[in-house]
């Protein structure tokens, strides 16, 4: 279950990181523009430049995501399993809209074209605090 406290980190405010691996055990890390809340047990990841990541997910469907709380930079570490690719629908549309907004703000229109929303089932989610408690 995704806790409510994780929701600010699942709105695509800060780029996230995904790590996958090939069947022969070679890791691959990539930045992602968005990790998006879908429902209490699923997240979506924006698919823009994912050639190696997608090859790996076809071989080994598991991944680890790191996404930051934009207020504290604390890391939500999410262990996930890839379940499907969506190229249309409400999740895809919402993510595409936000990417357009990011592109507009950063002057990178055309760079962030969304190819798909990759849907993952959440296996575990853990908060990693990066600073001393205040």
């Amino acid at each position, binding site marked *: 279950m995704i806790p409510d406290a994780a929701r600010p980190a699942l709105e695509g405010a800060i*780029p996230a*990181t995904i*790590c*996958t*691996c090939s*069947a022969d*055990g*070679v*890791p*691959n*890390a*990539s*930045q992602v523009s968005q990790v998006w809340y879908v429902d209490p047990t699923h997240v979506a990841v924006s698919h*823009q*430049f994912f*050639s*190696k990541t997608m090859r790996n997910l076809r071989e*080994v469907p*598991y*991944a*680890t*995501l*790191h996404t930051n709380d934009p207020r*504290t*930079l604390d*890391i939500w*570490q999410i*262990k996930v399993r890839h379940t499907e690719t969506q190229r249309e629908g409400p999740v895809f549309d919402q993510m595409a809209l936000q990417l357009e907004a990011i592109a507009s703000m950063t002057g*990178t229109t055309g*760079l*962030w074209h969304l190819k798909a929303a990759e849907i993952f089932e959440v296996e575990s989610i853990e908060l*990693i605090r*990066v*600073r*001393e408690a205040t």
Partner: protein
Amino acid sequence: MIPGALREFLSAPRWCALGLVDQRGRPHLARCGGWQLGPPGGPDLLVVTRTSFLSVLPGRDASDRVTLLMNESERFVAYQLKGRGKAREATAAEIEAAREMMGKLAVTSEQHWGLPASLYTSIILAPATTIEVTVEEAFAQSPGPGAGERLGGTA
């Protein structure tokens, strides 16, 4: 071996994430605090991370295959370095160098993104682990059509 074109990129503070694979073949991630170029004849990079960020250790409960994602978020420039890694306890000098790098990263992030520098400078780094990384391959990872292009290496 690190391709020459990357040495200048690596001479400045960058965001850094470490990717690992455990013995079940599952991928893991760890945020890194900083790095230094390795000594002549030794590993290419000495990457420092807070020990508690590591859910597995390369060469122990993870394989020695590692990947490093380095990025400069201000210009959307990123590279990925793949190779072999070995974990050991970080020295005080390595932790201090990593803190210094995070301090510089904090300044640029505050200027560019408006994120308070204190968010970075108060990140706890100790106890820390150093991953000695021997780079075998490097890839361009910046967003765009060149993403994934191999830059060269010793493999």
